């Protein structure tokens, strides 16, 4: 079973993402609410993919992505950043942090599912 780490400080976003994934797929969802917790859970849970917000307390998504890339155990995990920040400077910072994809909110359920499946299909 594929495991996805959902990272966002918004309960609403986590709720929406879980509604898409848990009702429509058999992916296992685990969650974190800031970047530091995401780095810890990525190491502990070894997910197949990380779907992460950028603007979060304690540690933002850019820094968390860099740290995930720095660790031997987690450096190959696909990381998709999903954020309200659509400015070019933010997108550049996202890819410099090592993310595989950068998606702007709002994202609809079907698009989210297609995006995840493009990374998780066998």
């Amino acid at each position, binding site marked *: *079973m*594929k495991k996805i780490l959902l990272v*966002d400080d*918004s*309960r*609403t*976003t986590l*709720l*929406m993402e879980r*509604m*898409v994934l848990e*009702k*429509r*797929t*058999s*992916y296992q969802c685990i969650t974190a609410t800031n970047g530091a917790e995401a780095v810890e859970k990525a190491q502990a849970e070894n997910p197949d993919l990380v779907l992460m917000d950028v603007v979060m307390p304690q540690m933002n998504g850019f820094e968390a992505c860099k740290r995930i890339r720095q660790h031997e155990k987690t450096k190959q995990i696909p990381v998709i950043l999903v954020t*309200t920040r*659509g*400015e070019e400077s933010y997108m550049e910072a996202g890819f410099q942090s090592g993310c595989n994809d950068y998606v*702007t*909110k*709002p994202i*609809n*359920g*079907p*698009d989210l*599912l*297609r995006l995840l*499946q493009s990374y*998780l*299909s*066998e």
Partner: protein
Amino acid sequence: MESALIQKNGGNTAVEELRDPRPDAARKRLRECTNQPEACEAIREIVSNLLGCEEMALFELDRKRGRFSLIWSFGTEAKTFHLPKMFVETALPGVLAGDAYIDEGFSDALMGGQGERASAFVPILFRRETVGVLALLRLLPQKAKIDEVDRGLFAVLTSEAGRPLFGNAESGRGRSERKR
């Protein structure tokens, strides 16, 4: 509602029509709120993350004085904020009837003293009466227009936000009764 056919993927994914879950997620989030601060935070999350607008203001209707008063705002200067003349002339009748007003052309719906423009006015109902209005200002740059899912989100805000925002006395009494 937007829908898509989801392909089966090694037994992992069901083949079926997927309704966009944003309105359902918004409804569930608002129903978890028990007071005004929680409801304002939920509204901010819904409008920012699910709709694509990070500038908003919430007004409460004072029926005795016949005017709306600002009670909360996010992403803009609260002190200079007021509902525009255009709101009273054009949007108010519909809002009082419970219908959202969407300014497709961003015409002259100026807000406050900063020349900010409103994208939509969303009525907030409690006990079937309009008790407030949520004004949405500029949409995020990547958000081209208000679409059908957004209209679904407006409907959820209209029907679900009033209880936690303006039904505090009842929800507070409910909590104390449960404690006893």
